[in-house]
């Protein structure tokens, strides 16, 4: 555990990619195979759930620290990270000499699910008493934390590739899909000894960068395909060994969530992997994303939901055909293979092709681009006909050309402290526009879009202009105006404003504007009418 805690703290401390890769590599070269697989579990977001109630853990920690709950909460708001807060509040241990390994701690935590609350409490406090402050922090992360320390899967893959001297594309593929640290080993999974029969394993997605400059810079139009960029869920559909698997880009196995697509198990040839977008689809066109959103989080898909938000799969690539990995074929060739497959399929509306856009000149494409919103698309994907299907986000062959966001000028009215790197700074903002009654109506929360320097300035303003406190939320004197961009807008009964915007973010700080000059709810409703 000491080794892992040290790795964790060191990773956390640096923001240099190469330094992170080096730290991970050293870890993978020196840690035991057992620990490595657990570390990998954490870094790839596969931390098992130990069924502990965060509220109870907070209460236990407050009791141990001998402070009232409100003071615990205040501390938490300042630190911004629950695991860290607890590690700072617990009495300092005089003797912490536990030599349990990372694996040992996972086994220790693995005992929790069967326990009563009382037993869980003792079990966890017992652990806290054996660990140093840093170790307690890492332990808390194992117990219930999100593992956000700026280590992307790509970095882990790079480090593993360097440590094992295996090609990084191969490693990327091996760490994907469904595996459980409890019944695999580092050797099987990464060194691929006996584990290559993993039928559900998806391929790493090829991701695009936003286009730089104009499309004309890409060269000859005839070298490129263009497709609509759909606003749905990027997914891979796998049919192998007579079993269907649907993976989303977040590497979540979501087969059960899309019963409409289960018929594919009866029609796809064995050894097929398709890449495409799951969208809600009606009257031969995709519906807005918020319709899809109504069913994403649900455990039970009622008949009503299935009727109101039916999905379809818009395929745009084929990665495996008849059990053969075809990612090295050209985009053009894969498209032909995909079309040939699709031609044999029934229910072509539910398993549909993402159409190629017909254009001869870039100018033509640019004209069509402005029609994206009407198609419920976010713009175009532009793919080089000669390109292979690559791993992760790569520049050069796939580009996304998104439409400009919609935007309004809004007033900052609430603020809350951030977490992690931004703990102690007010970085989470709520913005409002003017309602008909002359009052500010909140309509969006946004976190990102400001530079560190601007964040500092806004934070400075907020700290001196707090009107009220509600728990961690501060009401701020309505004075600062920001241009808020968003990708989509929809009616909402859940929000006071009656509208919900998608992907709101700060485009810029309008220091030139006074609060009175911000946009009105009427302006927002106007945008809504335009894109309904």
């Amino acid at each position, binding site marked *: 555990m000491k080794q892992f805690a040290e790795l964790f703290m060191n990773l956390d*401390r640096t923001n240099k990619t190469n330094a992170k890769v080096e730290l991970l590599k050293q870890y993978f070269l020196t840690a035991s195979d057992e620990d490595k697989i657990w570390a990998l579990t954490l870094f790839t977001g596969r931390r098992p759930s130990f069924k502990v109630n965060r509220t109870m853990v907070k209460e236990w920690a407050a009791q141990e620290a001998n402070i009232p709950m409100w003071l615990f909460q205040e501390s938490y708001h300042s630190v911004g990270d629950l695991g860290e807060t607890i590690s*700072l509040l617990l009495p300092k241990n005089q003797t912490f000499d536990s030599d349990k390994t990372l694996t040992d701690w996972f086994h220790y935590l693995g005992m929790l699910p069967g326990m009563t609350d009382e037993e869980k409490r003792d079990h966890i406090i017992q652990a806290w008493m054996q660990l140093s402050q840093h170790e307690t922090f890492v332990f808390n992360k194992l117990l219930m934390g999100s593992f956000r320390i700026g280590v992307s899967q790509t970095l882990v893959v790079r480090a593993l590739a360097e440590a094992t001297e295996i090609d990084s594309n191969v490693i990327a593929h091996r760490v994907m899909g469904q595996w459980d640290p409890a019944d695999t080993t580092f050797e099987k999974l990464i060194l691929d000894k006996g584990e290559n029969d993993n039928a559900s394993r998806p391929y790493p997605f090829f991701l695009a960068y936003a286009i730089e400059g104009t499309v004309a810079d890409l060269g000859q139009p005839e070298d490129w395909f263009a497709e609509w960029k759909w606003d749905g869920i990027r997914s891979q559909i796998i049919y192998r060994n007579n079993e269907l698997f649907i993976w989303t880009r977040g590497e979540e196995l979501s087969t059960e969530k899309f019963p409409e697509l289960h018929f594919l198990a009866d029609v796809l040839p064995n050894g097929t992997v398709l890449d495409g977008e799951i969208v809600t689809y009606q009257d031969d066109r995709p519906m807005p994303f918020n319709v899809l959103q109504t069913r994403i989080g649900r455990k039970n898909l009622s008949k009503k939901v299935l009727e109101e938000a039916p999905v379809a799969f818009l395929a745009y690539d084929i990665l495996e055909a008849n059990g053969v990995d075809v990612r090295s074929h050209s985009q053009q060739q894969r498209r032909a293979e995909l079309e040939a497959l699709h031609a044999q399929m029934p229910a072509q509306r539910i398993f549909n092709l993402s159409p190629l856009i017909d254009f001869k000149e870039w100018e033509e494409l640019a004209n069509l681009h402005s029609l994206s919103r009407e198609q419920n698309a976010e713009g175009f994907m532009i793919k080089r006909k000669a390109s292979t299907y690559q791993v992760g986000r790569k520049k050069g062959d796939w580009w996304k050309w998104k439409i400009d966001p919609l935007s309004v000028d809004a007033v900052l009215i609430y603020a809350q402290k951030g977490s992690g790197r931004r703990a102690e700074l007010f970085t989470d903002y709520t913005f409002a526009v003017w309602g008909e009654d002359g009052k500010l109506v909140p309509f969006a929360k946004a976190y990102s879009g400001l530079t560190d320097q601007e964040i500092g300035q806004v934070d400075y303003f907020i700290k001196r202009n707090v009107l009220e406190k509600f728990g961690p939320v501060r009401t701020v004197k309505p004075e600062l105006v920001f241009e808020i961009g968003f990708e989509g807008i929809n009616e909402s009964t859940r929000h006071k404003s009656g509208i919900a915007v998608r992907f709101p973010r700060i485009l810029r700080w309008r220091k030139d504007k006074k609060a009175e000059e911000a946009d009105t709810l009427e302006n927002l409703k106007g945008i809504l009418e335009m894109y309904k």
Partner: protein
Amino acid sequence: MPSQPLLQFTGKSIYCSVADAHIDPWIPVDKAIITHAHSDHARWGSKHYLAHKDSEPILRLRLGQDISLQTVEYGEKFVINGVTFSLYPAGHIIGSAQIRVEHKGEVWVASGDYKLEDDHFAVPYEPVKCNVFITESTFGLPIYKWQPQHEVMSEIDTWFAQNKAEGKASVLMGYSLGKMQRILKNIQLPDEPIYAHGAIYTLNDRLRQAGFDLPELTLVTKETDRKLFRGALVLAPPSVDSSTWIKKFNPYSLGYCSGWMALRGAKNRRAVDQGFVLSDHVDWPDLNRAVKETGAEKVFVTHGYTSIFSRWLNENGIEAGEVHTMYGNEDENEEEEVVQDAAVASESYEQHKAKLDDEIENTSKEKSPTGDLGVEGGREL
């Protein structure tokens, strides 16, 4: 009719109306009693100042050579219109004091900023019995619990030794006044020269001239041969990390000494290689201990986590109220300082030094040129 409290929070100082004297006023007044020389407590423009004698060199450097300043020893009593004042060590920085105010048997103590641990440079904190205690709460949350000083200092020693072995400069940032002297008194000093930024160099020089036992520092100038920085210790104020000044030390490791380094978020935001948790303010346990030791029946909580700490005291049977002052910068920026373009500062040093020497020799009536160098100010945006 209830009589007026002995000390009042007027919005421009902590004010004693009977004596017509202000403690740490943030606007110019007639009589200013200064707890310590940090810029958020010792502000410019008052007619007469009174402070502990060890604050004198810095106050004159920062507020002007010609200010009207009366100095006293710790424990020395002086009476203004029947009110007895005396200063007691606060342990925060050199010359820092708690102001004890006594009138008709009632005792108030305004403690300014303080810490309980002996830093081997400032005279250590002494608890003072009082009826009413005015305390800071910069780190008034139970998450703040300092390690013993010697542990932090040995972390610094280890970091420096490792950088030296790797041929890197160790650029150590911290508040010029207080933190840097504390570091110099507690780390293992290298045999080689210790380099310093102008802000720190000037202070150190002044304190040495005033007879304080501090090692000699070497000023970093534009002309300093960069090769000399290899493996050297370089002391710098906290604002240099985003300046071009720091580039000349490449390759270097960047360390930062501050109480805020206790939190990962703050540490990562600072993007330093090494955060050392070292503060000249009381941590949570010491804050509680200090309040208890005064025996005060009422406590006023100023700058920091005022509402939280006063609620905590009230719940624990000590009557407490929160007071808003302009000390500190709410709960951020314990030690931000304005150091104007550091490179320019170094360049203008020679010029400045000449003036400085003149002043000391002639005790000239000319206004000191402190605006250029080593002046710390509250961060104004």
